[in-house]
C-alpha cells in the first residue's frame, strides 16, 4: 500500500514537472513586453484617468503591458538621477523640456524623431510643442500634451469696479491693478519666491515684450533694453501685490485669488477650483490672454509635456511607439486629457483638438471659449531658454530658478530693473564659462 502511494506520488511529480516545462515554453513563445511609465501627475483622479487608458491599451495589446508609477514634481529630479545611476530608469518618463535636457546631457535619452514624425503626419502636431525638444539634430521627447498660462481674473469685482476686459495692453493691466488695490485687498498676486511658479510669471512679461534670455545664436541677451522694460513692469506689479509674495508657495496664489484677497492671477487653465469657489458665492471668474505692450506680441509660457524614452532595445522601442501612438489617437487622447483634469491638459494635435471625446466633457463644454483661448495661447506658446536651440546652461537657469531670484531682488528692493537684468545676464555668462 505504501509502495503504491509512493509510486503515485512520483508519477504526479513527474507529470507536474512536464506540464510546468510545457507551459513555460508556451509562455516564452508569447513574450510580453512590460513597460514602466513615470509621470508626475499624482493626484488620484489623474492617476485613475491614466489607469483607465492604460487598462484599455493593455487589453487591446496583450503583448505589451504598461504599468504607471506616479511620482511627484518635488522628488522626480533626484529620483530619476538615482534610477539612472542604478541602471534602472523607467522606459518612459513624461517630462518637461528642461528635465529632458538635463537627462539628455547624461547620455541616456533615446531620440524619438521617428515617432514624432509619424504622429505629426497622422494628426498634425503643433510646431510650438516640438521646438523645445528639437536640438543637436534629433528630437528628444514625444510631445504628449500642453499646459499654457492664461490670466485669471475676478469678473464680479471687475464689473463692480467698471474695469473693462480683456486687457489690450500692459497699461490697462497696470491701471486695473492700481484701481483694485485698496482696503487690504490687492489687484494682483505676483509671486517673488524662488520657485518655478515665479519663473513662469516673470516669463509671461518677457515673452510678450520680445525679451529673450538667448538670441538665436546662443548669445545671452537678458540684459537687453526690452528686458529692462519687462522687469521694470514686473517691479510695478509686485508693488501692488501682497507684501509676503517673496515667500509664497505654489498654493498661495490660488488661495489668495479664490478667497478674493487678490483679483488677478496667472495659471494654467484650471477651471475646477474657480468653479468650486463660485458655488460658495465668490467670483464669477474668467480667463483672458496675457496682454502685451506696444511693440510686443501675444505669447504665453507654455509647457510641452513630452514622453522621454530611456531604452535602446528595439523590441521595447517598438512597444513604446505603439503605446504613444495609441495615446495620440484623437478620441483616446481627448478622453484621456479631459478626464485627467479638464482644461489643464491640452491636446496638441489639430486632430485631437477637434475630437468629440474632448469636447463632450461637461467642464470643457462649459468653458468652451476659455479652452479655445488656451488653444490659441498654446499655438504661440513658448518656454524660456527653448525659443531657439536650447543651451545646456538652461538646466542651471531653471534649476536655480534664476528668473524667480530676479523677481525676488526687485521685491526686496535690492536691485532696480537695470541692475537685476545685468546681474542675471552676468550669472548666466559665468555658468556658461564653468560648463565649458
Amino acid at each position, binding site marked *: 500500500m505504501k509502495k503504491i502511494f509512493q509510486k503515485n506520488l512520483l508519477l504526479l511529480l513527474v507529470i507536474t514537472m512536464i506540464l510546468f516545462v510545457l507551459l513555460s515554453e508556451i509562455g516564452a513563445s508569447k513574450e510580453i513586453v512590460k513597460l514602466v511609465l513615470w509621470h508626475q501627475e499624482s493626484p488620484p483622479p489623474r492617476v485613475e484617468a491614466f489607469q483607465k487608458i492604460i487598462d484599455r491599451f493593455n487589453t487591446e495589446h496583450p503583448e505589451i503591458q504598461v504599468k504607471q508609477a506616479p511620482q511627484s514634481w518635488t522628488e522626480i529630479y533626484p529620483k530619476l538621477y538615482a534610477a539612472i545611476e542604478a541602471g534602472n530608469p523607467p522606459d518612459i518618463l513624461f517630462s518637461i523640456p528642461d528635465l529632458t535636457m538635463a537627462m539628455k546631457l547624461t547620455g541616456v535619452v533615446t531620440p524619438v524623431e521617428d515617432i514624432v514624425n509619424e504622429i505629426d503626419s497622422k494628426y498634425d502636431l503643433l510646431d510650438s510643442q516640438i521646438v523645445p525638444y528639437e536640438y543637436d539634430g534629433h528630437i528628444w521627447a514625444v510631445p504628449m500634451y500642453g499646459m499654457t498660462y492664461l490670466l485669471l481674473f475676478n469678473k464680479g469685482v471687475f464689473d463692480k469696479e467698471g474695469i473693462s476686459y480683456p486687457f489690450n495692453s500692459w497699461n490697462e493691466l497696470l491701471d486695473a491693478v492700481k484701481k483694485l488695490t485698496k482696503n487690504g485687498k490687492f489687484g494682483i498676486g505676483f509671486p517673488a519666491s524662488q520657485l518655478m511658479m515665479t519663473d513662469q510669471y516673470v516669463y509671461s512679461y518677457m515673452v510678450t515684450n520680445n525679451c529673450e534670455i538667448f538670441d538665436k545664436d546662443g548669445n545671452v541677451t537678458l540684459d537687453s533694453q526690452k528686458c529692462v522694460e519687462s522687469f521694470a513692469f514686473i517691479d510695478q506689479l509686485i508693488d501692488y501685490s501682497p507684501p*509676503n509674495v517673496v515667500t509664497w508657495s505654489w498654493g498661495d496664489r490660488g488661495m489668495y485669488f479664490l478667497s478674493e484677497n487678490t483679483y488677478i492671477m496667472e495659471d494654467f487653465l484650471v477651471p475646477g477650483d474657480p468653479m468650486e469657489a463660485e458655488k460658495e458665492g465668490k467670483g464669477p471668474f474668467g480667463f483672458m490672454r496675457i496682454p502685451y505692450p506696444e511693440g510686443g506680441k501675444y505669447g504665453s509660457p507654455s509647457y510641452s509635456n513630452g514622453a522621454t524614452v530611456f531604452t535602446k532595445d528595439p523590441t521595447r522601442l517598438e512597444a513604446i511607439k505603439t503605446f504613444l501612438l495609441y495615446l495620440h489617437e484623437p478620441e483616446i487622447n481627448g478622453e484621456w486629457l479631459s478626464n485627467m483634469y479638464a482644461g489643464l491638459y491640452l491636446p496638441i494635435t489639430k486632430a485631437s483638438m477637434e475630437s468629440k471625446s474632448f469636447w463632450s466633457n461637461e467642464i470643457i463644454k462649459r468653458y468652451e471659449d476659455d479652452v479655445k483661448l488656451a488653444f490659441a495661447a498654446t499655438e504661440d506658446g513658448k518656454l524660456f531658454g527653448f525659443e531657439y536651440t536650447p543651451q545646456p546652461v538652461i538646466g542651471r537657469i531653471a534649476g536655480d530658478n534664476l528668473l524667480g531670484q530676479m523677481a525676488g531682488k526687485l521685491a526686496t528692493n535690492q536691485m532696480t530693473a537695470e541692475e537685476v537684468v545685468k546681474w542675471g545676464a552676468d550669472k548666466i555668462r559665468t555658468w556658461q564659462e564653468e560648463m565649458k
Partner: protein
Amino acid sequence: MVTEKLNIQTKRKFSINLTKNEKLGLLLVAPLLIWLALVLLYPFIYVIFLSLFKRDPGSSIIQFKGLIYFYNLLFRDDLFWQSLLRSFYWTASNVIAQFFFGILVALLLRQKFRGASFIRLWIIVPWITPVVVVILVWGWMLNPTLGIVEALLRQVGFLQGYLNLLGNVKTIMNTLIGIHTWRFFPFVSIIVLGRMLGIPEELYEAAKVDGASNLQRFLHITLPQLRGVLLTFLMLATVWTFTSFDTIFIMTGGGPVDVTTTLPILVYRKAFKTFQLNEAAALSLIMFLFTSIFMAIYIKLGVERDD
C-alpha cells in the same frame, strides 16, 4: 630557536584570542555592523569619491578632478561664504536662545505652584509636534494680511501697515530663529529641570543660611551642578542646529534671495536642483569637517572637566 620564539611572540601579539562569549557577542552585533557599514560607511566613502572624481550618472567614465570642487567652492562661489557665515549665525543664535529660555523655564518650573505638573507635561508639545505642522502654523500666524498676529496688533493699535516678518529680508532670519527656538527650548528645559530636581536641597539651605542671594545660589550652586548636562546639550544643539535643514527649507526654501540659505540648504540645491553633485559632495565634507571640530572642542572640554 630565538627566531622561533620571536615568531610565536609576534603571532601572539597579532592574534585575536576571543572567548566563546566574545565570539557570540560579535556574531550578534554583526548584522548591525553590516547595516551601519552599508548605510553610513558606504555613502560616506561615496561622497568622498564624488568630491574627487567626476562621473556622469549612468556613465562608466571616471575622471580624477583632485581638489577642484573644493577650490570652486572656496574661491569662486560667493554663496558658499555667505551660507557659511549664515550657518554660524543661525547656530550660535539658536543655541544661545535655547540655552537662555530653556534654563529660564526650567527655573520657573522648579517652583512649586498650582498647575506646575500640568505645565511640565505640556511644555514638551512644541518639541514633539511634527516640524511641517509647526512651520505651517507659524507661517499662517505671521502672514501679514491674513495672519492672527498682525491682525491683533492692528486691532489694538500697535501696528499700522504691515510688519511682514517673513517677507522682510531684515527680519526673516531672526524670525526663523525664533520659531526654531520655540520648537527646541522645551527639550532643554526638560533635561535641565530633571537635573535641577536632583540637586540636594541642603546645598541651597546652607547657602541661604550663609546669606547668599538668589543670583549667588544660581551662579555658585545651580550652574556648576548643571555643567555636565549643559555641556552635553551644547554639543548636541550645536551639531543638530548646524546641520538642520527642515525649518528653513519648509518655511523659505533658503529665500528670499538666498538670505536664509545655510550650508545644508546649499547642499540640497547643488545636489538636487542644479545637479552639481560633485560640489554638493565637497560641501558636505566641509560641513563634516566643521561638525568634527565642534565635537573635538566638546570632548576637550569634557576631558578637562573630568580632570
